[in-house]
């Protein structure tokens, strides 16, 4: 009791049972934690855990459905963005929210002027802030002309211009080069030394574990654990949340290296906006194999699949399918060539029935016959039961099954899957992966991007590790699954180099 009392008195930010739902989707479901003055707290958790939603609740972008949020003992609930900002909360954004058409310096000046600092004084201070983040020489460039890394630093400078009591950082390192990350970490250390209270969402656990006083782990909208980095690292639930439970499944003889090359990727380079998302990817996929691509967020996994599927035009490089070049073709053409992508977060057509989603899956080849439909229905019996329901009413797992079934109905020679287990319960994940196993056995070649490595690898013939837009390692899945170093790969300490490369 007393302890709690002390904690509260020392706390700058208190969150108690915060809740937020959108229609059927629960984004935040009972989150509670404190941040004490001068503390550096990190929020971690798998995608879809509700991390950014928590930020939006704190800053007033969302109004909570329940619970209490206090800053310095004053409730923030029901206050406007502006009001909360003026109470001393500043933030950066996971997807950059700069004033693109304005000069870098003006981006910062706006924040200063909002607090009544005007004229030359504002510009003077703005330049100082830009120096601190190493943008002094880019002060007069338009924000959207800056490199991605510079833009992240600019957002930081803008947030600092508000001289906040509390700084919220949303994935500050994602998309940054190693050097930039180092510089950022330096900056954070300085800020922390100056006594600023920092709350950071971050996927790069190396940074998190090294820098944080305490770590809050969110999972499916709930606080799973809070404690020092050490406590958290060894917390079994956390490991589970990140790697998923390893699924009992007989190891299959790795067919790696057999079969001839179906897809060959050479020096593929793709830019997303100002970010160099793919930086010279070389890769080949053999007929009939399942290739698992693992790697931290922002490593470029989804961009790779998107580029292969034709959603993002590559800047340079070659992609050949059965020897025929397909790079630069639009998605609607590539699907006809036999590559189907099951995109991250499913993207089912929510207002259409399950059945019609499936029909659309076969759109490119002029529709599916009943036999083909029966096949996917036997693969996913739950879809058969729900054929007449709107896809939007399905559970996450069912939507994922629908997305996969929809992809299969394109009769692809190569099926690309992006994070199929995202935010799903282990039981459901098992179900889905069994289905994938069946699909692969039936002879469809599969490239799988998956966080839940322990679930994915037993299935995989080969794996590839992606880091910062490149494939840094490839090998036989057999050599890797169950390997403790894998956990390290996710929870920090370099691993890619130490893995056997093919």
């Amino acid at each position, binding site marked *: 009791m007393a302890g709690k009392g002390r904690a509260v008195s020392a706390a700058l930010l208190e969150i108690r049972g915060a809740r937020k739902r959108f229609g059927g989707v629960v984004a935040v479901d009972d989150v509670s934690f404190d941040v004490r003055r001068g503390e550096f707290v990190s929020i971690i958790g798998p995608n879809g855990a509700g991390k950014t939603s928590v930020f939006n609740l704190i*800053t007033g*972008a969302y109004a909570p459905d329940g619970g209490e949020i206090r800053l310095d003992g004053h409730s923030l609930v029901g206050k*406007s*963005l*502006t009001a*909360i*900002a*003026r109470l001393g*909360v*500043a*933030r950066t*954004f996971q997807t950059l*929210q*700069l*004033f*693109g*058409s*304005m000069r870098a310096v*003006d*981006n910062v*000046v*706006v*924040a200063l*002027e*909002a*607090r009544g600092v*005007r004229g030359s004084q*504002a510009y003077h201070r703005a330049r100082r802030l830009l120096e601190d983040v190493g943008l002094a020489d880019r002060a007069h460039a338009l924000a959207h002309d800056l490199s991605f890394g510079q833009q992240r630093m600019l957002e930081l400078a*803008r*947030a600092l*211009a*508000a001289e906040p009591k509390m700084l919220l950082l949303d994935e500050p390192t994602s998309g940054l080069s190693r050097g930039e990350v180092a510089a950022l970490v330096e900056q954070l250390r300085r800020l922390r030394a100056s006594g600023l209270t920092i709350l950071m969402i971050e996927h790069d656990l190396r940074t998190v574990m090294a820098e944080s006083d305490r770590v809050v782990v969110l999972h499916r909208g709930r606080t799973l654990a809070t404690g020092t980095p050490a406590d958290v690292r060894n917390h079994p639930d956390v490991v589970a949340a990140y790697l998923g439970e390893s699924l009992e499944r007989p190891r299959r003889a790795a067919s790696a290296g057999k079969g001839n090359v179906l897809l060959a990727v050479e020096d593929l380079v793709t830019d997303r906006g100002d970010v160099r998302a793919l930086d010279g990817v070389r890769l080949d996929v053999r007929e009939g194999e399942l290739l698992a691509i693992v790697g931290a967020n922002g490593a470029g996994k989804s961009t790779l699949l998107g580029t292969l599927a034709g959603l993002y035009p590559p800047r340079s490089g070659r992609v050949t399918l059965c020897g025929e070049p397909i790079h630069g073709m639009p998605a609607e053409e590539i699907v006809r060539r036999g590559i189907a992508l099951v995109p991250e977060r499913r993207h089912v057509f929510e207002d259409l029935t399950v059945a019609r989603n499936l029909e659309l899956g076969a759109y490119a080849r002029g529709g599916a016959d009943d036999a083909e439909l029966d096949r996917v229905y036997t693969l996913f019996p739950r879809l058969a039961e729900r054929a007449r329901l709107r896809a939007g009413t399905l559970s996450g797992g069912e939507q994922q099954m629908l997305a996969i079934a929809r992809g299969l109905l394109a009769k692809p020679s190569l099926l690309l899957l992006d994070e199929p287990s995202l935010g799903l319960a282990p039981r459901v994940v098992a179900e889905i992966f069994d289905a994938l196993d069946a699909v692969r056995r039936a002879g469809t070649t599969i490239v799988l991007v998956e966080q839940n490595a322990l679930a994915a690898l037993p299935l995989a013939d080969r794996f590839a590790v992606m880091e910062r837009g490149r494939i840094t390692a490839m090998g036989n899945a057999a050599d890797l699954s169950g390997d403790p170093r894998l956990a390290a790969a996710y929870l920090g300490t370099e691993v890619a180099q130490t893995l056997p490369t093919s």
Partner: protein
Amino acid sequence: MATVRNACSAIAVALLIAVPFLHNGYLTGLLVVVAIDALAATGLGLLVGAAGEVSLAQAAFMGIGAYATALLAGHGWNAWLAIIGAGAVVVALAAVVGYPTLRLRGHYLTLATLGLGIIVFVALNEASPLTGGPSGYGDYPSLRIGALRLSGDVPFYVLAWLCVALAVIGGAALRASWRGRALRAISASEVAAASVGVSVRARKLEAFVLSAVAASLAGSIYAFYVGFISPTSFGFEQSVFLLVMVVLGGAETATGPVFGSLLFVIANEVLQALGSHLFPSTAQSAVAALQIVAFGIVLIVVMRLLPRGVAGAWLEKVAR
């Protein structure tokens, strides 16, 4: 940037000062009309360019300005006071209407302003005891400086373009001020702007009111220049045309809308002159139609070639 704007506004003003010395009442008169549109468009440009809001109520504020001025002057106010009075009326109205309206976003804001415009239009028609209704209102004294009565084109030419120059310079200054920066920040990302403490609604409301004031002034000048006003001059189409002028000229700079109005009116008039003198009078009905077709096509082509508008286009040139 600011220097570019000022230089460009200076030249524009100089160019337009030059024209009356052509001793041509028609051209001068034409440029008075341009100036009146330019004034209203400059205001709208602030809203579209700086705040990123599309309003279809601009002609309505022009109308209120015109009618308020005429009525006050008609009821014995000093004409100049009447202009100021009208401005005050519009400020009050814009503030009251803008406050709830600016909560809306995108199409919904556009629709609400459109509705506002139509409501005003109907009001001008229906309040006939006061406004003369659809038949219009012309029973008010003309503008005078001391004993000197302002009539004819040249005095209004000077007056109107002075106001435009002031509006442009004021607009440029505002865009360069902290308010302007805040506005651009809001139009770039409302969330981000709010979360660094910019008071979104206050800034938006300011922009809305200021643009309305410019329109009101334009209306006042129109009322005295033409000497007769009727609702048809301030209807939906006029609002659309003002928007076209803004986008045509480019909303990013304070001078863009001025060039827009110049282009809009001159293009229109040149087509008109071409038609009426290259073809026999018997063909004029057809020619009138052809003018419209040509005008529509010009509009499409310009927008396709210069999506940032004329001013925007040469800003790009300058940038390189």
